[in-house]
């Protein structure tokens, strides 16, 4: 895949991510931001994939 297509796909995943958070807020109550990993307070870093 080209870099451009990969970038577009990543953007589409982020858009879906927003949609899922909104639906979670609808199902569980509260605000979509309540389900936002970016606002979750933790000192731990997410590990990039290794996998080889």
């Amino acid at each position, binding site marked *: *895949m*080209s*870099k451009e*297509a*990969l970038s*577009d*796909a*990543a*953007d*589409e*995943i*982020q858009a*879906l*991510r927003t*949609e*899922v*958070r909104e*639906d*979670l807020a609808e*199902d*569980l*109550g509260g605000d979509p931001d*309540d*389900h*936002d*990993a*970016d606002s*979750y307070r*933790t000192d*731990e*870093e*997410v*590990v*990039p*994939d*290794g*996998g*080889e």
Partner: protein
Amino acid sequence: MCWTAPLLPSTDTPILDDREVPPGATQTVTEDNTPRDYDRLYQRALAGPLQIRVGLDVSGGEVTRFLVQLEYRRGGSWDTVVRYDHDAEGSAESSHDVTEEGLHIDIYRDGEKHVTEYVVGPRPAGIALDTAEDHLAQNLERFVERYERWHDIRKSR
């Protein structure tokens, strides 16, 4: 809400169903007609030969089960590239409880699970679901390039 896309064969999507989505389209199912009984199921065609499927269950005010799966269309079927999952009840042998074990990623090669990697420690399932989607977006290039290298796929698609 109802499905509008035709069926498409799939070789490696045992948990979710096998329906093709036109580019840019989204499907969300919240009724009982969801195959494999996810309360919500999202299936979105992505750029190039990719699609993402997200399934989740909600019960008792919590996300009790979810799956985030990237697929690559190859040879007329959808191959799993990577998968994140959570099952609070642990009903599936290979599933993880993200609230206890943390979030993991299953990496696929040649149609089979190649390795499982740790992503981040325990966190609420709804947050872990969002973390999984973000992790996929952030690492998409690496996942796809590795998949293409493993399967001798040219980058021109």
